[in-house]
């Protein structure tokens, strides 16, 4: 009986491993191609393992893509700071201070998440053209933050609503005390929410292609997503370099998955956002 149950469970693990392998095959293939030599790239059938592995692709990344990676890092960190600065106070007010019209604002934030990014980007283009903000890093940071701010307010509101009211005595608070309470009690207690929001803001900004393509394409400082896009667009045949860049661009996602998986899962279920 017991051994039967054990073999059954072992069998499930085997099926699980197989399914995961199928699901992650494209990721494996990206790594495999990134290590393939130029002369093997068009081989038929392709090598399933990088038996003649080469790091030439990664050398190209080091030679050509470092400025792009730097820009991406600056933009993503800028987005994180801007998003937390805007969303944390808003979440506090919505959760604890009972503003009149707060329900309407929450609704607007929810609706804002539904608007297609490509449409926002075209609107931003028209606005930035007037303001002279096209091809600027601050402009891209502001645009990228629109991906995260509504979600961030939702997360902060949900989290801060769970902080016991007796701790804050929100009902009899004047403005100055509200500010101090927020800064020295609410914000430190909301560390988990800050981490979740920062992770998503970083990841979405780092991954953004739509805003970058429309707002900073051809500029002096372009993010890594455009670096990859130019590679493909130039009809470049060095797929090992393209895939090596893709692997490097995926590193933040990998780090986040390993170090902060539970924040990711909590974020998905709380916000139930993004496809």
């Amino acid at each position, binding site marked *: 009986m017991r051994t039967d149950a054990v073999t059954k469970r072992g069998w499930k693990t085997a099926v*699980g491993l197989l399914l995961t392998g199928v699901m992650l095959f494209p990721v494996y293939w990206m790594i495999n191609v990134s290590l393939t030599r130029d002369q093997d790239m068009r081989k038929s059938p392709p090598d399933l393992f990088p038996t003649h592995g080469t790091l030439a692709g990664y050398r190209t990344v080091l030679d050509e893509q470092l400025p792009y990676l730097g820009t991406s890092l600056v933009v993503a960190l800028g987005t994180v700071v801007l998003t937390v600065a805007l969303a944390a106070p808003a979440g506090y*007010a919505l959760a604890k201070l*009972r503003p009149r019209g707060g329900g309407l604002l929450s609704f607007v934030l929810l609706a804002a998440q539904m608007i297609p990014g490509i*449409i926002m980007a075209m*609107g931003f283009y028209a606005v930035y*053209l007037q303001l002279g903000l096209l091809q600027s890093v601050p402009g891209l940071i502001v645009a990228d933050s629109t991906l995260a701010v509504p979600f961030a307010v939702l997360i902060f509101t949900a989290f801060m609503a*769970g902080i016991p009211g007796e701790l804050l005595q929100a009902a009899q608070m004047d403005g100055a005390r509200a500010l101090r309470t927020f800064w020295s009690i609410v914000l430190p207690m909301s560390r988990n929410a800050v981490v979740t929001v920062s992770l998503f803001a970083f990841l979405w900004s780092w991954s953004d292609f739509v805003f970058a393509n429309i707002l900073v394409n051809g500029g002096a400082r372009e993010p890594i997503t455009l670096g990859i896009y130019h590679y493909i667009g130039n009809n470049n045949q060095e797929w090992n370099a393209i895939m090596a860049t893709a692997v490097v*661009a995926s590193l933040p996602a990998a780090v986040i998955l390993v170090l902060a998986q539970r924040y990711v899962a909590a974020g998905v279920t709380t916000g139930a956002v993004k496809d």
Partner: protein
Amino acid sequence: MNDTKQLSDRRSALDRVGAVAASTRAARDRRRPTSPQWAAWGFLAPVTVYLALFYAYPLYRNLDLSLRDYTVRSFVQGDAPFTGLANYRKVFDDPVFAPALLHTAAFTAVCLVFQYAIGLALAVFFNQNFRLSSTLRALFLVPWLLPLIVSSSTWSWMLNSDSGVVNAVLHAVGIGPVNWLTSPSWSLTSVIIANIWIGVPFNLVVLYSGLQSIPGSLHEAAALDGANAWQRFWRITFPLLRPVSAITLLLGLVYTLKVFDIIWIMTKGGPADSSTTFATWSYQLGFGNLLPAFGPGAAVGNLLVVAALVFGLIYVRVQRKQALS
């Protein structure tokens, strides 16, 4: 990573959404003496100004674009003549309109059905705890976390007609090469496959958290009554999962409608508009040609916004109803 801790985190995350709804309702019901409104709105001011400047204004500009006859010159100078709904009429009469509508509907429907079905099957599978189940489930998040340009370019190369691994596998089982990205009859299928792959993890995570909230005792009782696994799924799991399913599908709908990156990077909507949707068509009109048609491009975009908001409103209604019940 501690599995039970994760679960309780997820559950409490869901509970918290309910708590927000409850607390706003409570605030409405009891008009207790509240803190000064100006203090509350002081905290909300930055985000309100932000929404006006960086959501409302770009959207207003987009609306304005769609109602005027813009050229490159007047786009810079901002003195285009007002033409009412002429751009919308132009878009409706465009030969691309019908195919774009059809592709958008087909892309959205097929992606949703497969993402949901695969996500649910995987969620049920991972819900039976076995060795490594939580680790493997975490690995399933990878496609969803990767930058879209990374997944799209990887799929592009995998689906390459001459050197792609997909055709190599098909060749090995005796099927001739398929021109995935370069033949008009396959391009839409190709982008659908890639998008399903990207969307499965989201469905898996949300549906899994839904399964976790179904008490195991129900299954045990049904098993004692002699119901087999198949019956237990259709009679217990599936009906009890309906609220979560509705939310998942509606959100999936809104987010699939606006998919742009994957299609644009893999096929640019081509060949010959065979994979063009409203999102790529809008961009194509506004930015993809030598002579940009900003007005019609914005018009297509606004149609998409309206569609997304309609389904978004349905989503909000469903969610409200669930929070109240």
